[in-house]
């Protein structure tokens, strides 16, 4: 990334850190969701954006992370701060299973997509029918406001946790970009046979990518549960969440470092505003139509996402200056 790019990112980060001083709680919530979806998008980006292995079932990892953390907190009294790593570990294990089956048997393209969807659906149905974890009603977390229970009296606590998650995932992805892992993942995405011929153990690197991606997504699941205080199989394991995770990086630019963040800044406020607006006017669900239209527009006019265009515009400004 250019010097200008780094400076701009630093300025943006300072602004984001200072923002809660001036924003009200309602606006903070929108930002929490922006950061949260950018974080999940970044986790997905490692596997699907850089590695080209399209997952449409990332909700499975969110759900496993969310349920594990919550169950450990409710039944074993383990703080979500610790439980989240157990949840992420289980999500990573699930990722390893999906990856092993998919990559060992050489599923590519649509067939791998279907495998990820199938796993997420199996998770959802299992959760729906397991009374021990609440069945269809799901689990509800009692609010205590105890920071040790990953709960904050003030929305700002969640704001900073979500921001930290997003920044950490992006830092990690930046490191991946500059490593053999990142170079090999993009090579696999561009041409798997050529990568294999050049010494890339394609099976192993795809497996590393899905495990890392699932681990991060599982951590995100823990945040989801503790932020919303409730989880139901249809929401945390559902296809709509998987789609929500994919949309940000695709709109922002899949396989680019800032794509998921950019996409989340575009889509999340739109989703939140249209959700509240249309719900108020009695047209619940219309926000999905808005979503769909936006996605069509992106596919038609920005097939590689918004980020490449932004980067080019910035580069032009710099040469002009």
């Amino acid at each position, binding site marked *: 990334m250019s010097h200008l790019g780094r400076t701009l990112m630093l300025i943006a980060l300072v602004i984001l850190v200072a923002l809660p001083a001036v924003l009200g709680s309602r606006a903070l919530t929108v930002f929490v969701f922006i950061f949260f979806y950018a974080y999940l998008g970044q986790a997905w980006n490692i596997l699907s954006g850089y590695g080209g292995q399209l997952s449409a079932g990332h909700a499975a990892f969110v759900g496993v992370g969310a349920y594990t953390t919550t169950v450990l907190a409710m039944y074993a009294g383990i703080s979500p701060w610790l439980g989240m790593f157990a949840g992420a570990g289980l999500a990573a294990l699930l990722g390893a299973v999906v990856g092993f089956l998919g990559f060992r048997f050489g599923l590519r393209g649509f067939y791998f997509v279907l495998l990820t969807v199938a796993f997420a659906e199996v998770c959802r149905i299992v959760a729906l029918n397991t009374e021990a974890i609440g069945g269809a009603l799901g689990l509800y977390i009692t609010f205590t406001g105890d920071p040790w229970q990953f709960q904050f009296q003030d929305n700002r606590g969640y704001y900073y946790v979500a921001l930290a998650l997003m920044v950490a995932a992006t830092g990690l992805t930046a490191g991946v970009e*500059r490593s053999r892992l990142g*170079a090999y993942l993009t090579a696999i995405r561009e041409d798997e046979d050529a990568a294999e011929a*050049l010494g*890339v153990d394609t099976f192993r690197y795809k497996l590393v990518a899905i495990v890392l991606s699932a681990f991060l997504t599982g951590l995100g699941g823990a945040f989801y549960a503790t932020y919303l205080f409730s989880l139901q199989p249809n929401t945390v394991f559902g296809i709509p969440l998987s789609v929500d995770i994919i949309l940000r990086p695709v709109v922002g630019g899949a396989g680019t470092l800032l794509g998921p963040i950019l996409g989340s800044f575009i889509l999340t406020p739109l989703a939140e505003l249209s959700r509240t607006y249309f719900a108020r006017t009695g047209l619940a669900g219309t926000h999905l139509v808005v979503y769909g239209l936006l996605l069509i527009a992106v596919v038609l006019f920005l097939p590689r996402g918004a980020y490449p265009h932004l980067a080019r515009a910035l580069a032009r400004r710099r040469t002009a200056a």
Partner: protein
Amino acid sequence: MALLEAVGVAKRFGGLQALGGVSLAVEAGEIVGLIGPNGAGKTTLFHLVSGFLAPDAGTIHFAGEPVVGLKPHALCRRGLARTFQLVKPFPGLTVLENVRVGALARLPRFPAATAQAREVLAFVGLAAKADLPARALTLAERKRLELARAFATGPRLLLLDEVMAGLTPTETGEVVELCRRINATGVTVLLIEHVMRAVMTLSQRVVVLNQGQVIATGPPAAIAADPRVIEAYLGPEHGHADP
């Protein structure tokens, strides 16, 4: 023992016997040309040797070790690199990034691999294109990139599958020169080629495949005069008419 030694290698695709017990040895340091009419089984042999396909029968040894069953990436790590007849650049990556993927096979650290990739690009004459996306290259440049990437893996044996096909005579001459320079660095070369003049000037030894069998092996001059070879290429009446 030869650097590469294939014995009795056979491969069948459904009803088609692509290779019927082919034996081939390549000594370290050689440039060997592999020729034959279309469908003779040349590319199939490359796929078997490089681990992309498994033979139905026969053994393949590389540097004294049996390699049947090894994946292509494992063979690459052992020093056997290949190019593809239909070039497979990573289109969205820059030329430098393409070659760096190859260099990372021996040099796991980014800075060292990047430096190595730049050296290889200078060696093959693509340094000026380093920062262009691979999709912006001409066919001749793509062929050269394909070669550069494979060479960057630090191979002992390089399998080149028609790296000259579709090039102008001038470009072909440049690639011939490049192959010689690569060979001079100590890399053994086995190349499939249809451009006869190039194979004949470049190879120390030529192996001729026809219908899945080796029909002749020898120095270029002897191969060019071999009636069996002429017959394979031009049909029986030509083969027998020429004494």
